[in-house]
């Protein structure tokens, strides 16, 4: 039973290796969905491209950096403005996008001159910006533009600027996961250690894999301030380019999103001996545990306990109000990968919610090991899902709410199932204690939204002829 071939997949039986239904007494050694593997022809994947993983997820968050996208204009638009990661300097990274706008003649004759001109133009137009990340895309990688040589020329002409190149075109990997990898490894090899940060506390850490979605970084920063811990670099929420060049000086790397940024923590451990602590920064129980571990590492346990006590006093009654109203609700999590294992026990322990189906676009097998260890029996675990599978699973499990992105979210709304934005959030931040109350509130408002009952009611007086699909 445990690996499942859904009815909708009867013509693509390879999908059976990607869908697991956890049964009682399953041996964890026997079942693991195949992951981080090429999408099967015949399935309409909802994955993003590798370039998107580098730019939209990680690099594009930086608040003082020109994001130069060397490609057709669509590559820039598709990776801009769809994630809500604010900054404390006026949201430069959300307002502006830069592209070389490659056209047919540039593809035929080469785009290096156009790129060089665009880089100078961007620095001239925004003289206060001195940092740039330059990304290649499918077309400019295919024609072989030498972007490193162009970068070298621009840096020689402008000694006060620093530029990082990410050569990860859309086709470089099976999903956006490849882009995370290329950016992580490139950064640690080329940029970490090129600046010495100012040290202001004996307790220093990097907080890795948090992208300040709707202010997550701002919220967590209150905790680190209360504990007297200096965060040398947030990778990359609300961060400056140069913060990330000083990551080698932190005494501890705390990792939240191990999928998009575990690589840099691993490399920092290998190169500089900095230990890597993995935590979950969503949920009460987990956030408290993370704070306890960090405090123990630095020998400031009393401060940690005081912080946890004051946050519990402030937020736990509010969480419990929602828990009383959410207990037993059935939830599906259809996101990128790590939120599956971060959230499944957190919503169960803190809110009494049952997670009945989870799917991952770009998770690796490591992510499935974690989520199957934490998830419920009778729950579906799906790698690289397609829409027909969503429909079939919805019919099987009848969720009360689905945490997913706007594209799939709009789809499930038409089935009169509420969704909460599991990527960019509805009304976040969702991390930490206060954040989890926000998540509970959004889930409560979705589950108990009376509009869905109204929408389900067919008010037409006479039955209407059903539309049939064209054959």
């Amino acid at each position, binding site marked *: 039973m445990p690996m499942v071939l859904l009815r909708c997949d009867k013509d693509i039986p390879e999908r059976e290796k990607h869908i697991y239904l956890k049964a009682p007494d399953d041996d*964890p*050694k026997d*079942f*693991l969905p195949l992951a*981080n593997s090429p999408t099967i022809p015949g399935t309409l994947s909802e994955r993003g491209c590798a370039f998107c993983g580098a730019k939209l997820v990680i690099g594009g968050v930086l608040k003082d950096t020109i994001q130069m996208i060397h490609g057709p204009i669509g590559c820039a638009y598709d990776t801009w403005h769809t994630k809500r990661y604010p900054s404390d300097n006026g949201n430069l990274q959300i307002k502006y996008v830069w592209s070389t706008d490659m056209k047919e003649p540039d593809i035929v004759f080469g785009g290096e001159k156009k790129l060089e001109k665009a880089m100078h133009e961007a620095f001239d137009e925004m003289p206060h910006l001195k940092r740039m990340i330059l990304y290649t895309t499918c077309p400019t990688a295919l024609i072989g533009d030498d972007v490193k040589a162009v970068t070298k020329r621009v840096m020689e002409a402008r000694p006060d600027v620093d530029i990082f190149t990410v050569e990860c075109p859309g086709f470089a990997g099976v999903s956006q996961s490849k882009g995370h990898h290329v950016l992580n*490894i490139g950064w640690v090899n080329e940029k970490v250690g090129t600046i010495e940060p100012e040290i202001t506390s004996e307790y220093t850490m990097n907080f890795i894999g948090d992208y300040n979605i709707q202010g997550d970084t701002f919220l967590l920063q209150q905790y680190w301030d209360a504990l007297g811990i200096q965060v040398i670099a947030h990778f990359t929420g609300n961060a400056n380019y140069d913060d990330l060049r000083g990551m080698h000086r932190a*005494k*501890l790397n705390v990792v939240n999103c*191990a999928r998009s940024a*575990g*690589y840099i923590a*691993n*490399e920092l451990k*290998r190169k500089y*001996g*900095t*230990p*890597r*602590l*993995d*935590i*979950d920064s969503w949920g009460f129980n987990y956030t408290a*545990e993370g704070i*306890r*571990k*960090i405090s*123990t*590492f630095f020998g400031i346990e009393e401060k940690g306990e005081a912080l946890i006590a004051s946050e519990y006093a402030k937020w736990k009654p509010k969480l419990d109000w929602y828990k009383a109203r959410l207990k037993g609700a059935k939830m599906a999590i259809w996101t990128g990968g790590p939120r599956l294992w971060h959230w499944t*026990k957190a919503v169960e322990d803190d809110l009494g919610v049952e997670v009945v189906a989870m799917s991952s676009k770009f998770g*690796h*097998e*490591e992510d499935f*090991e*974690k989520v199957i*260890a*934490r998830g419920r029996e009778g729950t579906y675990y799906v790698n690289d899902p397609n829409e027909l599978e969503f429909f079939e699973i919805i019919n099987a499990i009848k969720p009360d709410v689905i945490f997913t992105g706007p594209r799939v979210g709009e789809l499930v709304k038409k089935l009169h199932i509420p969704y909460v934005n599991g990527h960019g959030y509805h009304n976040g931040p969702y991390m930490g204690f206060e954040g989890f109350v926000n998540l509970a509130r959004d889930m409560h408002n979705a589950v108990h939204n009376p509009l869905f009952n109204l929408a389900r009611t067919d008010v037409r007086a006479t039955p209407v002829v059903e539309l049939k699909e064209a054959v």
Partner: protein
Amino acid sequence: MTAPALDEVYGYVQERCLWQFSSRAWDRTENIDGVLGTLADLLTNTPVNPSSPTERLFLADARVLADQLRERFPDLGSLDAAGVRALLESLRERVTQVAITQSRNHELHEKAY
């Protein structure tokens, strides 16, 4: 009082602890041996004196886990030091088996990160 069964303790550790699932086999081995070794010391009241940042991290992970296990499995207190160490050695073997030697994760033995 009866000592907690290995299955129960393993079930809790498997669900709770991210350190067993790090990226590569060598990281997993280091973490499993480091954290569970320190945990054995803590649960047998053996002094722990970390001498490196990595050992300090093992202590942080192990201390939180020790508190959770004591709370969840009060019968742990009925075991003497040898009993605790035997239980944790069986636990280490089980975690190693599931997370490393019999894991179906294709990336565990890749040479680079």
